């Protein structure tokens, strides 16, 4: 009985939705069945998979930039007090800038294309990653570095073989924050003028293809969930040694 409980909750929610849709009787709220049908249709016509693929591609571009720039910089700032003092003011100035704010300037400078997504999604996802990397490398216990030094490791080996692995759990937490942000910013950029799922969503809404629109939202939700679950899987597989992961990982 207990194991069925989550599914019961799900079932109850679906029933609630069905009842609400039938009583409301408006086109704005289709029944779950209609949405499911629309979802199947969108998948069969390859519209949704193609759109989601584009979105994932845009997300990946931005995440790649964020990982490639944010992590090394964050690690460096964490290890070096001087660099941290130097860069913190400019970082604090840029921090409150909401990622969507970068879309218009990026449009002006780069036009629509991979460059825009890389820049905008990269900025949005990069900040949490940078902060996570900085915090993680600051928090590396000195005893680990002392041990490595006393065993004869040079600075390069300490950074690559000790600091970086020790930071991985913190980086995973940062990535957990960055992933949803990256997805959201990518979809937003697509809505403003690009292609992919964002554009598809708007198009479906404006042409009053409501069940398909909901199906699209479901697709995006599943994508978001999938990315999270993927991260959790990677964490369990590779970061099992970090203290909080010695017990079963929390739900994605």
């Amino acid at each position: 009985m207990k194991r069925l409980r989550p599914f019961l909750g799900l079932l109850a929610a679906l029933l609630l939705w069905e009842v609400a849709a039938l009583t409301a009787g408006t086109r704005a709220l289709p029944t779950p069945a209609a949405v499911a049908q629309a979802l199947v249709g969108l998948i069969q016509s390859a519209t949704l998979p193609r759109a989601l693929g584009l979105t994932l591609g845009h997300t990946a571009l931005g995440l790649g930039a964020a990982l490639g720039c944010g992590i090394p910089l964050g690690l460096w700032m964490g290890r070096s007090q001087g660099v941290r003092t130097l860069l913190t003011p400019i970082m604090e100035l840029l921090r409150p800038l909401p990622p969507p704010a970068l879309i218009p300037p990026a449009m002006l400078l780069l036009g629509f294309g991979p460059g825009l997504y890389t820049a905008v999604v990269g900025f949005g996802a990069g900040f949490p990653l940078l902060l996570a990397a900085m915090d993680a490398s600051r928090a590396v216990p000195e005893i680990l570095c002392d041990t490595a030094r006393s065993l004869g490791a040079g600075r390069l080996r300490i950074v690559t073989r000790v600091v970086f692995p020790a930071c991985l759990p913190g980086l995973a937490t940062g990535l957990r924050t960055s992933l949803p942000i990256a997805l959201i910013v990518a979809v937003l950029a697509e809505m403003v003028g690009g292609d992919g799922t964002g554009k598809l969503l708007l198009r479906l809404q404006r042409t009053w293809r409501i069940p398909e629109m909901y199906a699209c939202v479901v697709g995006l939700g599943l994508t978001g969930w999938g990315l999270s679950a993927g991260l959790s899987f990677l964490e369990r597989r590779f970061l099992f040694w970090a203290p909080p992961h010695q017990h079963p990982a929390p739900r994605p």
Partner: protein
Amino acid sequence: MIRLAGRLLPLAALLLWEILCRRGVIDARFLPAPSAILACLGAPGTAGDLLAQTSRTLLRTLGGFALGGAAGFGLGLACGAVRSLDAALRPLVEILRPIPSVAVIPVAVLWLGLGNSLDVVVVAFACSWPVFVAARDAVHAVDPTLCDTARLGGLSPGRVFRLVVLPASLPGTITGLRTALGIAVAVAVSCEMVAGSDGLGQLALTASYARQDPLAWLAVLAMGLAGGVCALGFSLLTRWAQRRRPGLLEIQPGRGRMP
């Protein structure tokens, strides 16, 4: 010494930008010089327009934040305190949470039409999640020792909750609120870009389409300032609260689950 250099770095960057524009290294058609942006601010009507749009954006941000924060807080506390409620709602939460907030915008347009309520509702939706999760987890993380001590002291469960669990979960909840505030600004601006007729988001976008680059950059700057003002306001508020009740935010979360 380095600290001074760090503080001067943004200014130096701006100066470099200006110089590169004047020298022609940066094509002013693509990237206007800071002086041009400032000049645009000085143009008649711009400052007033900018201020009006900023206040609209801020109102939507704060309105949505208040709504979503309250909803998330209440629900989070409830789920933290009542295990069965938490278990019952968990599947629903886990389904709705991964939905990107921007994807909700077309749905909200359908239900509410364009207008202020759209933005506020979408912002509230986006804000409620971090607050909900933070509040729920904070309640779960309250050190059982604290609760046990209170119960042994003769307090009823209701009073234990009010006098012990609530204060103890505050630091975690406040962290969630801080996250939510950052999200609020971003989501409000997103709504304006996608489905709005005014506000900073819409201003930045239309200015970009009309190739009024300096105006677009001003709007971007205003968005950053709005975000900064919100964050500053929040930290001032928490610091004031801490002064009124020292130790308010010093409580460390425990490792146990609430009984």
